[in-house]
């Protein structure tokens, strides 16, 4: 062992020989001849140095912060758009040209329709022959500004049930988009948690 130790101090030993020296001092403990006392202390110190461990890892955020920020911004924008859309539908009145073009249903009059109701048809055909012919007054179509530019649309939802179904479908679509973004974010966060759990397990 003395020869081996001398070679060690000269820096001539192999890794295997150095392991043998360390094993020798570990096995011997305090029960060593006086000549090895100095080396024993040194190898004990090295052994203790090797036992130094890194403290428990701090939380490592493996999901890039910039990505998180973009997801948050996207989610906020979607929510804002949804809220604005709902508010608009509820509070903003229809444009005036649409109101004129779609008058109340009970009057049943649209530009170009007969304004006056037809006279009752007499039962007796002879009366019909004698009665003067009434020319129906034809109302000219109301031309409004922008009418040519704006595509004329019929009221798409006369039935309230159908309108509700349409709104629900639109909201479901928006919701699915939000959920998709949330799932991606959740997946990233789960990965972070998984890493953290494994790190904790490793740290024992």
């Amino acid at each position, binding site marked *: 062992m003395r020869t081996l130790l001398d070679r060690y101090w000269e820096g001539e030993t192999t*890794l295997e020989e150095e392991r043998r020296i360390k094993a020798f001092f570990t096995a011997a403990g305090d029960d060593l001849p006086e000549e090895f006392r*100095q080396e024993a202390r040194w190898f004990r110190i*090295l052994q*203790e140095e*090797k036992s130094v461990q*890194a403290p428990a890892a701090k939380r*490592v955020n493996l999901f890039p912060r910039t990505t998180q920020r973009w997801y948050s911004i996207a989610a906020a924008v979607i929510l804002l758009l949804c809220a604005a859309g709902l508010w608009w539908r509820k509070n903003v009145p229809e444009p005036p040209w649409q109101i004129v073009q779609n008058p109340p249903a009970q009057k049943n009059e649209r530009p170009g329709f007969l304004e006056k109701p037809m006279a009752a048809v007499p039962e007796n055909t002879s009366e019909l022959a004698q009665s003067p012919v009434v020319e129906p007054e034809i109302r000219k179509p109301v031309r409004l500004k922008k009418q040519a530019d704006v595509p004329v649309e019929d009221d798409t939802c006369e039935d309230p049930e159908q309108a509700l179904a349409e709104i629900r479908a639109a909201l479901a679509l928006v919701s699915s988009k939000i959920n998709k973004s949330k799932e991606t974010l959740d997946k990233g966060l789960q990965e972070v948690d998984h890493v953290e759990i*494994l*790190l904790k397990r490793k740290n024992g």
Partner: protein
Amino acid sequence: MNWTIFQHHVYPIRHKLYRFALRITGSIPEAEDVVQEVLERVWKSSEGQATDVSNWEAWCMTLTRNRSLDKLRATAQRRVVPLDDQAAKQFDTGDAARATELGDLAAQARRLMQELPEKQRLVMHLRDVEELSYEEIAKVLEISLDQVKVCLHRARKTIREKLVAVDAYVPANV
């Protein structure tokens, strides 16, 4: 970075990285920061970069060395001697007397090693504490094999002389 690679090749050597960073910086908080940054850097490395690495340990050790030296340069502390109480804290085994004794020994060892020139100190740490081969040490420190051998020889010689000098002040039963 693939999770499997990280789990099997990188994460198990975190203690080794920490000891190496501690050896260079001589500061526990700095060493913790270095390890954290190196692990993050490795995790965020691209798949292409990850597949090019043949020796994860050597690569991580090199990153640790570079990051530690950057920190040292940033704080303008080329030579840092660790505080004794910090060293004692590292060896908290639950037994107060033994902890103090080991803390003293560790502090003593660190002091002896910290007094060595930087290259010798790092070569000695990588060989005697981490048990790396000459080739691995040369790769991590980016020096030649001959330089590694020369540095180790000089470092051991110096330490032996210092141990003899200290021996007079150390009780025989330690």
